[in-house]
């Protein structure tokens, strides 16, 4: 990556010339000139426009959620009558009622276990694979990469029955003999909930793309210094792509948290059901309870919002490079 010694800030390749760079920018502050003032004003207008655009877009994104929350605060009668945007009286009670309508504390606990399990598995295995595919030279890596891409391309409805069969005929579990016959395998167990979706090809691909931007010279140098390959991965390469970890973590957590069909198919007992299954109960063939469903969904989304808020705080340009010093 190019380094411009006149106007540099920290970059992955930044070297010992850093100290000299800061002086140059300090001069600017001490002696503002007409050009920089115009630039600052242009900058302020640009930022104002950007802010307005973001505000409008955000509001458009949020309209359905506002509706969702407002619905959660209405009575079923108000929803049945329709028409009014705002609830007559704000029925916070609905949130409590939704929680009581099903054992959500169990469902939430289950969803948490599964989501955390999947996230940990992904952050370790997918990052390792992504790094290897991006930065290590070994025979067949191109084919493996193609294989991971292909794994994303098969529609889930095509693989769900074979996956179910693998789970059901898992040898030596749930009463199955070595050929997988006789019992129920992993059906209705934690194994079925956590293992199959544990690592996604999506995450491997994501890590691989991020790792390609890590400068190879850095790794070569470490190699020469005698750092082990594993050490290079964990102590040098990985810290360069913290945003990738955050992104993969958030996305994996979200997809596990909201997963619905698979947990429904591989479990029979209520103790192993997840949040979305609980919320789906509010929408039935004959009658549905929309207020409770919206209340439930709002509550189910809150943890995700918190996680995302936390993760995105680290998305500040330059953070990835701080580790260098």
């Amino acid at each position, binding site marked *: 990556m190019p380094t411009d010694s006149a106007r540099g800030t920290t970059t992955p390749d930044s070297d010992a010339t850093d100290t000299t760079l800061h002086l140059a920018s300090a001069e600017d502050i001490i002696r503002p000139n007409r050009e920089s003032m115009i630039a600052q004003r242009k900058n302020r207008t640009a930022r104002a426009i950007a802010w307005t655009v973001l505000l409008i877009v955000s509001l458009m994104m949020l309209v359905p959620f506002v509706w969702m929350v407002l619905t959660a605060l209405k009575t079923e009668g108000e929803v*049945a009558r329709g028409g009014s945007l705002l609830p007559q009286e704000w029925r916070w009670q609905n949130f409590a009622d939704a929680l009581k309508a099903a054992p959500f504390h169990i469902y939430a606990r289950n969803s948490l276990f599964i989501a955390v399990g999947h996230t940990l598995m992904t952050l370790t295995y997918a990052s390792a694979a992504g790094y290897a595919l991006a930065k290590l030279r070994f025979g067949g890596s191109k084919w493996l990469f193609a294989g991971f891409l292909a794994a994303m391309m098969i529609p889930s409805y095509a693989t769900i*029955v074979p996956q179910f*069969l693998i789970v059901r005929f898992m040898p030596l579990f749930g009463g199955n003999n070595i050929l997988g016959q006789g019992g129920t395998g992993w059906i209705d167990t934690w194994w079925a909930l956590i293992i199959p979706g544990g690592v996604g090809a999506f995450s491997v691909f994501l890590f691989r793309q991020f790792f390609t931007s890590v400068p190879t010279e850095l790794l070569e140098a470490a190699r020469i210094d005698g750092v082990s390959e594993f050490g290079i991965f964990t102590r040098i390469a990985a810290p360069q792509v913290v945003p990738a970890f955050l992104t993969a973590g958030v996305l994996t957590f979200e997809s596990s948290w909201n997963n619905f069909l698979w947990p429904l198919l591989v479990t029979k007992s209520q103790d192993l059901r997840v949040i979305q299954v609980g919320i789906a109960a509010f929408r039935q063939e004959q009658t549905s309870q929309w207020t409770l469903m919206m209340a439930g969904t709002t509550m189910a989304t809150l943890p995700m919002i918190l996680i995302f808020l936390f993760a995105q705080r680290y998305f500040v340009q330059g953070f990835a490079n701080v580790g260098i010093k």
Partner: protein
Amino acid sequence: MRVSRRALLAGAGALAGGALLGACSEDDGGAKAGSSSVAPGELTGEISVLNPGFATDDQKKVWDQMVAAFNKTAPNVKVTTDFTDYGKLNEKITTALAGNLVPDVLMTGVGWIPPFAYKGVYAEFDQALIEGRTYADRVLETCKFEDKLYAIPFTQDTRSLIGNKSLWDKAGITTPPKTFADFRDACKELTSGSGANKQWGFIINSSGSARQILATFLGANNGAMFSPDGKTPLFTSPECTEALQLLVDIIKDGSSSWDIKPAEGSPHPFLGGKFGISFCPSSAWPTWSEANAELLKPENSILFHAQNKRESTFLGGTMMSRSKTSKNAAAADEFIRIMTDTESIRMACESLNTVPPLQSALEASETLSGNRLIKEGLDGLQFASFEGGSAAWLEIRGQLDPILEEALILKTEVPVALEKAQKMAQDAIDQL
């Protein structure tokens, strides 16, 4: 993955082999249901039930009560229930069948019985199981395949037609139309205005899918979708053509439009008072009363049936069946017998807001008798029309709706569309 490719192929073989082995080791459920000579109190073992309803905690409590009643007579039988989302019942059953993990008791809907009976999934019931009960003939028909009984009615959903009395009075209509021609005229008379002030005669797409709406009018014309043996589709029959043509004519007259339909969770358009006639599902009482209780009063709305050669109301519902591979047939049958009996379905229908298939259950329940729609639904069971009737139905139904819709959005002429439907259905049946 180069190295593991061989392993993969071997694995796939093992997987398919495992599935086949599993399928091979199934034994036939044995004797026909109901012919067990074991006293209920002496039944033992476990039975598993797949339940697409009773999803919320309150409803589960009712279900538990119903199961407890069963356990009173058969205390040594353990009942485990798998509650599934009704929208995912297809996936649940398919994976269970593929993995040979079929529950003992299944609850499925109208139209499912012939395919599952044909495929050997369901066990045949001895008529003795429903001795002493009076079901409407048509309701029992949905549970039969080739004249044998494969399911017992549990809860029903019906759809009648409902008319807005004040609009009828304005148009000078006093009695419900008794022929297709009268119906079409009535719709015309009930239509007036334009744009945002338009008053429509009939909202056709008011409940269920195109094939179910057609089934209602087809039944009114004394027609059916399939021949009695289920091997020939009758979409090009005159009865069917007339029925679909009626709907298309009403749309062409401007009295209705296919693209007007209720949005899930929003108030039904009929309740806005701008439609002369609409379909009305029996389960609509709670929501519709909230939205417009006035309109639902007998003096303000008329419940009637589609009619031409006979009266017709649409029938849907849930039936209970036993799987052929069940290892505890006797217990499963006794379970089904009790769960479909008066007391049990009374509790179920009160909780789910559905129509009981037995008059005795309605009489035993104030809530149900007091519900105008449910009472009317039960009375109308004798006129029930339903979709299905062929072993290939589950494959046909998904493809039928788009073809019918082509005619209803006036993209294709009725005879052409029905030809397409006929060919599609015949292909599916030939494939069996």
